[in-house]
């Protein structure tokens, strides 16, 4: 895994954390009144935050799995060449 890929992975992880924050923000910051229907800002933050969370989690998982597969394939090829 080269340096660019690692940096991209870090950016994806931080995006995931940002999306999680976005989903919590209406209740933590307090612009969603307790005991009331969700206001427009809350609905928007939950929808966008949920979508970003899903996309970044899927991307993170896929990149990690594919990177591990590529590393294993490279190791197997090296072992085959050594024999």
């Amino acid at each position, binding site marked *: 895994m080269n340096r*660019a*890929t690692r940096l*991209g992975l870090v950016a*994806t992880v931080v*995006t995931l954390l940002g999306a999680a924050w*976005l989903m919590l923000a209406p209740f933590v910051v307090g612009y969603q009144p307790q005991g009331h229907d969700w206001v427009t800002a809350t609905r*928007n933050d939950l929808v966008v935050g949920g979508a*970003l969370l899903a*996309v970044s989690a899927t991307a993170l998982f896929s990149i990690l799995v594919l990177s591990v597969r590529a590393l294993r394939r490279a190791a197997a090829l090296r072992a085959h060449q050594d024999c």
Partner: protein
Amino acid sequence: LQTVTRFYVGILGGIAGVLGGAWLILAPFALGYQPNNAGWADATKVDVSTGIGILVLGLVSVATFAAGLAATLRAEGALPPRARRAPAPPEPEEASGEVAELRSVLVRLAAALENHEQTEPPGERHGEPAATPARERRAS
């Protein structure tokens, strides 16, 4: 193909981040929960600041995964190698030996020619008297 799929996934994730971040910046004004002519509400501050952060992270993701994709394709020979700068031409060496002698002869010759042109009367340069008509010259 499998070696580059992860880069495409990363680029798509980055594009989603860019679009989501841009929407978060616009949403308070587009959906109307930021009142006009008033200070920014808490929801606006949260959405705009988080949106800027996610937008920048998305750009970083796209740039880094695209760079990784290009490097991998280049390593596999699918892309031409990056053009390297041509090395600077070597500094001319100090003339020595025959070259120095030849140079000094040429310098002296050029100086002599210049001196000759300056001292020669006008109209008689290059051995052709300009004022004499061609017919007279042939007769003489």
